């Protein structure tokens, strides 16, 4: 197995008395599509927020390529090549699709303040637009480049969220519930995209509470429940794991 790109060590997050994430350990191999699953409220989004720097861990650490990134602000972590999407389609609603993607290229082509004051047009501004178009084409959004982000369909908004994240060519991207609210056809399209993203060189860590949706795409799956590590393995191992079945069935019985 190749070296771990991302490693989570004894990670914990408390909200008052609630341990949303409790002594969590797992690692993501370079080039993998790695799933993080668990019932609703298991602490998956919180884990994402800890890894991406949105929250500070109560204890424990996060290592990216062996370097400790825990407690760093989000934009610094992003600059190290770890980028996330948000659970609900979070976009710049009043900007065009192309402009959204241009913001995504910020780290590749950071704008120059003095050039803006002096009114200079830099070649990097064009390069940013070209890269933005390229990533929109990758996600099948180029035809919508001039539309406002808020006018896109739900599926397209999801895709644009990923385009913004991937525009900067991150080494690892964290996707929070990318399949939510998708019909079977959109789900199939999104699964194909995942493979394409991996081919393009990014490692993927993906959160889902729907176990079936990501069985087909993940190399490895970490299961958590009540903030804790439950088990980890290849999809067919996890699927047959007694406690996993119990965690999900128990949940659905409660819901019923």
């Amino acid at each position, binding site marked *: 197995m190749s070296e771990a790109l991302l490693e989570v060590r004894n990670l914990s997050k408390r909200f008052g008395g609630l341990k949303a994430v409790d002594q969590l350990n797992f690692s993501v191999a370079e080039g993998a599509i790695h799933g993080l699953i668990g019932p609703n409220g298991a602490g998956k989004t919180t884990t994402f927020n800890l890894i991406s720097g949105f929250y500070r861990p109560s204890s424990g650490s996060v290592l990216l390529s062996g370097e400790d990134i825990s407690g760093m602000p989000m*934009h610094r972590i*992003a600059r190290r090549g770890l980028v996330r999407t948000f659970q609900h389609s*979070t976009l710049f609603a009043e900007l065009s699709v192309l402009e959204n993607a241009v*913001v995504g290229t910020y780290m590749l082509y950071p704008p120059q303040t003095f050039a*803006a004051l002096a009114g200079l047009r830099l070649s990097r501004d064009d390069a940013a637009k070209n890269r933005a178009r390229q990533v929109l084409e990758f996600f099948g959004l180029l035809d919508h480049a001039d539309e406002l982000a808020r006018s896109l369909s739900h599926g397209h908004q999801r895709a644009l969220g990923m385009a*913004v994240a991937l525009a900067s060519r991150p080494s690892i991207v964290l996707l929070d519930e990318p399949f939510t609210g998708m019909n079977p056809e959109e789900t199939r399209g999104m699964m194909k995209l995942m493979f394409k993203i991996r081919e393009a060189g990014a490692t993927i860590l993906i959160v889902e509470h729907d176990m079936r949706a990501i069985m087909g795409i993940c190399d490895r799956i970490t299961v958590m429940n009540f903030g804790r590590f439950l088990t980890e393995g290849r999809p067919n191992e996890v699927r047959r794991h007694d406690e996993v079945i119990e965690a999900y069935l128990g949940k659905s019985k409660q819901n019923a």
Partner: protein
Amino acid sequence: MPRWLVAVGVLATAALLLALPHVLSFSQREVLVFMTINILVVCSYRLLTLTGEWSLGHVVMMGVGAYASALLAKKVGVFVPLAMLLGAFTAAMVALVLSVPLFRMKGFYFLIGSFAAGEIIRLLWKRFRDPFGGPKGIKRIDPMPDFDLGIWNFTFFDPVSYYYFALLVVLAGLFVMWRVEKSPIGLVFHAVHWQDNLARSAGISVRAYRTLALVLSSGFAGLAGALLAHYIGTVNPNMFDIEQMVYVLTWAIVGGTATFYGPIIGCVVLTVVNEIVLREIGLEQGRPMIYGMLLIGTVLFLPKGLEDLFHRLSRIGLLFSRQPRGGQ
């Protein structure tokens, strides 16, 4: 729009702006100078609001530029136009220092914090007679030196001359701000305003860009302050108090801040209302009250400001002008 039409529009506007002082009375010319300077103040204020923060210290930053430029000219003997630029730079640098504590806060707390920071600066002006002149401020500030262009002899005590000079400076300032807004920096400002977390995950330091907006907007406010100081020849702490700030806020809110021209409309319309309507019917004393009512009225009935009205009117105009083509 065809290029010749733009050119005609620009020329017509230029002619109008050049001719404007000549159809006004002397006191109206003075008001015209103030309004020109105020347009720079309110537009620079909008630059800050692009990142989503509203400050109550903007007028004080204008004062910092005014004091710095006045002192540099009077005590150090710096050439007045250069002193003005240095005044703007001083305001920008003071804003940079203030941003360190202020941007630990957001929204309402930033608003209050900016007010407190402004009051501290005003207190320093009052407390330190040397060099700030205490409550009475600085008097007999050097005016712009006269010069002769051949076609026009600039004597800057004359409002018409000073209006032309201020207009040039203000237009240059607006041009730079407009360009910043249309540049990739402006895109980042928008991103920081509307989805700060998504911006962060794109690698953007939200704080750095909020600081940039504050520093730039304060620099232009400082430039406006310097223009004012060398025109009226005196500065004092009361010129930059919260009442003045409320006027700037009113121009911005009544005009609207979504577009570049919104605050300009607000400033022009309210100045005209103030000077023509209120002064004529002798209600000038009621200015704060009437501004307050206008502010509330705008928030209730025209939440997007006059710019929205303007926008809708121009769309209706466009609709009519397009009708012949609609029949094709």
